[in-house]
């Protein structure tokens, strides 16, 4: 038992706690592994700490995960790049554990270390490690190996490269679907390091096998491989080899595979280039838009705008628009909702005439959708359509939709529409707002749900910002201030909140002449909650108004409140007084 000098005591404890029974202490020690390493010095870190970590690999997953993460940045502590290979053995064992997140982190750390290693070290240490894992007894090791090939391959000599390609091919045909999935996931990364000649032969044949796998879960990962490989191949090879696969996948029996195609479509189009997109992928995409599985249509509908942008307006009008019309009346609300969230973006693509003629009826029907999310999604993207055709054409339908949403019985829907009111106000202009929307904004201030009142107060502030203090004084302030006399104390409190938000926007003068008297008046409220909120509001107003006003109006009021019978009122009043003193001192 060694006796440890006082200054080293913390480090000594840290080291001892690597093996503590309490997992939190072990975790804490592992997270400070670099401190331990520096205390031990580079040589003992290499010779003692790393072997120690290699041997103690049956810990809890959390500890193993932390170990894997720490080791990824450990190169400096073992003496730099020339000694990086000592870090491989502990990570190799961690690559074989059955907890996926630990394995993933270990692979990530190995890649990070491998990327720094010298070429000869890679050949001597890293590549043998990859081969050992790839021939591992349990599937966990083989799963991990797939993610390491792209680091190992570039520095391998020719013969070894051939071997690595062969091994990868075997992994793609492993008995265990988990291994094949990992091979499919990592194929793109590996392929990017393989020479063009082998890409067309070895990799493509491996890829072909994966695309015909029995397991749906493997095939759908191969879809992602299409985009990755497509970008590596020459355009003509891509059209020859990848395009047929994509077209096949878009008609796969499994809806999950088709869903992946719909989801990846844009990347797939980029891979095959515009010409093939027009001839081959448009029909495939149209099929996906008309798929009998709603999940596929949802994914496809979400890509309508992005896809149309690649096409010429004519093609989009000819092929995509009819589908969009169908989708706007789809039986699944989620499909309509996905469509509504992107369809406004089609207006700039199609141009003014087509938009008015073709898209406008769709917008209008979606604005009348029975499902609030659909309407909301349309309203949230109004600015895009406004740039193309102007808002007037829509305003007739817009208003009923907004009013209905504003009164929806689900408060989350009301909340969502409030969020868009400033946007709508800026798009529709002051005139439209004054007539139609102003009343709604006032109505929300008296909503039954706190979150709505809170959002409404915020909305009033944002409107004041949008249209300026003068407009606000004319159009909203009087109505807002009227409500300070509401019999319900919660509504009075909302108004106090709104005042505290409005004050910075409206400026010193309006605040002291219009807002402050009301607040001071509210200090005589019979409800203590109102009174201490008055104290809070006053505190927030102090920095805005002139000092004379503070002295003449705010302070006396606060002093009065600080003698209130209610303890909370006294507390907030004295807090406000204190801050007013601080403001004064600093100025």
């Amino acid at each position, binding site marked *: 038992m060694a006796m*440890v000098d006082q200054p*080293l005591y*913390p480090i*000594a404890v840290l*080291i001892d706690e690597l*093996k503590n029974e309490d997992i939190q202490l072990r975790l804490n020690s592992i997270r400070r592994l670099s401190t331990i390493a520096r*205390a031990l010095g580079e040589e003992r870190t290499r010779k003692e700490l790393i072997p120690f970590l290699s041997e*103690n690999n*049956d810990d809890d997953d959390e500890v193993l995960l932390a170990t894997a993460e720490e080791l990824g940045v450990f190169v400096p502590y073992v003496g730099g790049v020339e000694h990086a290979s000592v870090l491989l053995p502990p990570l190799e064992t961690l690559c074989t554990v059955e907890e996926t997140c630990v394995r993933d982190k270990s692979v990530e750390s190995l890649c990070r270390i491998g990327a720094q290693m010298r070429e000869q070290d890679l050949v001597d240490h890293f590549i043998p490690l990859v081969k050992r894992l790839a021939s591992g*007894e349990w599937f966990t090791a083989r799963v991990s190996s797939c993610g390491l090939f792209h680091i190992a391959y570039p520095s391998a000599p020719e013969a070894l490269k051939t071997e690595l390609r062969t091994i990868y091919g075997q992994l793609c045909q492993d008995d265990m679907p988990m291994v094949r999935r990992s091979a499919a996931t990592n194929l793109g990364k590996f392929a990017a390091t393989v020479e063009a000649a082998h890409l067309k032969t070895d990799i493509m044949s491996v890829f072909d096998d994966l695309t015909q796998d029995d397991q749906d879960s493997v095939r759908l990962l191969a879809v992602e491989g299409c985009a990755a490989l497509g970008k590596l191949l020459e355009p003509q090879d891509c059209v020859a080899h990848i395009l047929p696969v994509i077209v096949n996948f878009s008609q796969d029996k499994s809806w999950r595979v088709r869903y992946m195609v719909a989801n990846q479509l844009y990347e797939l189009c980029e891979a095959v280039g515009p010409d093939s997109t027009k001839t081959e992928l448009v029909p495939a995409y149209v099929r996906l838009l008309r798929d009998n599985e709603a999940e596929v249509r949802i994914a496809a509908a979400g890509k309508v705008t992005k896809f149309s942008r690649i096409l010429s307006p004519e093609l989009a009008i000819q092929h995509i628009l009819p589908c969009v019309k169908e989708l706007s009346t789809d039986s699944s609300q989620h499909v309509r909702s996905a469509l509504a969230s992107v369809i406004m973006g089609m207006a700039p693509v199609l141009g003014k005439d087509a938009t008015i003629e073709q898209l406008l009826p769709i917008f209008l029907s979606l604005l009348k959708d029975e499902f609030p999310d659909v309407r909301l999604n349309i309203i949230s993207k109004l600015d895009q359509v406004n740039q193309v055709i102007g808002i007037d054409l829509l305003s007739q339908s817009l208003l009923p939709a907004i009013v209905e949403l504003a009164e929806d019985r689900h408060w989350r829907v009301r909340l969502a529409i409030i969020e868009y009111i400033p946007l709508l106000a800026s798009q529709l202009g002051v005139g439209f707002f004054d007539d139609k929307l102003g009343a709604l904004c006032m109505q929300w201030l008296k909503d039954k749900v706190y979150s709505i009142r809170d959002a409404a107060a915020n909305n009033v502030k944002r409107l004041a910002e949008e249209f300026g203090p003068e407009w606000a004084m004319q159009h909203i302030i009087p109505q807002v201030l009227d409500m300070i006399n509401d019999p319900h104390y919660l509504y009075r409190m909302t108004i106090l909140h709104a005042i505290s938000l409005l004050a910075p926007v409206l400026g010193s003068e309006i605040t002291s002449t219009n807002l402050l008297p009301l607040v001071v008046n509210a200090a005589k409220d019979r409800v203590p909650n109102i009174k201490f909120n008055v104290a809070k509001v006053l505190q927030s107003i102090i920095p805005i108004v002139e000092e004379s006003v503070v002295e003449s109006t705010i302070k006396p009021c606060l002093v009065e409140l600080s003698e209130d019978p209610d303890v909370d009122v006294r507390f907030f009043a004295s807090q406000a007084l204190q801050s007013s003193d601080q403001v004064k001192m600093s100025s």
Partner: protein
Amino acid sequence: MNGGDDVVVASEEPLQPLEWKFSQVFGERAAGEEVQEVDIISAIEFDKSGNHLATGDRGGRVVLFERTDSKDQHGSRRDLESTDYSSSRHPEFRYKTEFQSHEPEFDYLKSLEIEEKINKIKWCQTANGSVFLLSTNDKTIKFWKVQEKKVKKISDMNIDPSKAIGNGSSSSNSNSSKPHLANGGSSDKSYNYPSNDFSFPPGGLPSLRLPSVVVSHETSLLARCRRVYAHAHDYHINSISNNSDGETFISADDLRINLWNLEISNQSFNIVDVKPTNMEDLTEVITSAEFHPTHCNTLAYSSSKGSIRLIDLRQSALCDSHAKLFEEQEAPGSRSFFTEIIASISDIKFAKEGRYILSRDYMTLKLWDINMDSGPVSTFRVHEYLRPKLCDLYENDSIFDKFECCLSGDGSRVSTGSYSNLFRVFGCAPGSTEATTLEASKNPTRRQVPTPSRPSRSLGNSLTRVVRRGAENTGVDANGNSFDFTTKLLHLAWHPSENSIACAAANSLYMYYA
């Protein structure tokens, strides 16, 4: 939907009936011993290799057994994964370990007690020498890892907390860890670690040392719950089944089937929902569900109306429509009050290659070919002699007993349980007339009846034994037929590669071989 080529018939000649012999019993009851409710076995499952067997009981415990007769227990993966044993010895198992999988719970929102009883156990992919399994009670599924851990002792700490310097290697970790906690609570707050700019001498500090770990040869088995899949079922879970993709599984309750990813415990996808909008319209519930053994997209579920539906997960996200429906048209005129009750399927099992499905309803076992939906390929009558007694069985609720069924690894025989701790084995190869009745006791064949269609006659001594046990529901009719409704053999499993059956009689696990 092509089921592959099951080998139903091994050779052209009909198979000889098997001679069943007693192999082992675990938890045998002594004469006159009362059976504790919590000890009653409620699930039995072999793993894919047949090297492990798990049982679950009403007390929420899972007991694991491992095979002792195969050459090397810790052989290579290839050995473990291969199921082909040339050994002529019959499988013998030994107790490996047990753990408490589920505890009784109370759902405060629904004011509902949740029993700890294990409804089903399923084995998952073995990895790194540890075994993995799923266990479920009525509501919650748990994923378990059972691993062998070497016992380790830690010695040689930097700081000797006890100051009692004895034999250094004997001071275990637990002794040394406490004082740090006592002194400083969380170490993070109590000590100032040297900050990053603290300069250590380039050679490090020689007085510091790492704890040394002494690995002893003792091992201990450690069962750890890795994930809990909860709050996804409003009704009682009756089945769980692993997918061949190794990453997903399903859980089925009375009205819904959910799909889970083994690694994600906080979300599942509903793939089958038979709940009508108005619960008064409910006529049919799901009784059992199983994934196809090799086709990742096919699953079968059975219903209380006696039908089996095959669904294709590729067709849509919510599989409201089935790909195939298997049901038998009832013979006209035979309809009675009990028809629908006894038609209810209590269990279905895919044969190994997935072409055949075995189903058990109250009176029969039926074997279906998934390529033939007009009717079952064969029907085996399990306890036809009970037909006149359906009224009594209804009154004491026995008619709702859920018997499980199983197939042999080669698909040539099927088996299921009955009352009085009897179970039956039938040959299902064409031309086979094999129909054996066995009793879950050390002498399985003593009650064997020569002709399967004749009611089984009870022997005097077994009857007295039954009475001595104090069973109240023992029915003896005028002909001397005994059907002890309390001793029912509900759970049994066939070894995946050999002719060996494990079955549960109350708290005892009996194993037979042929």
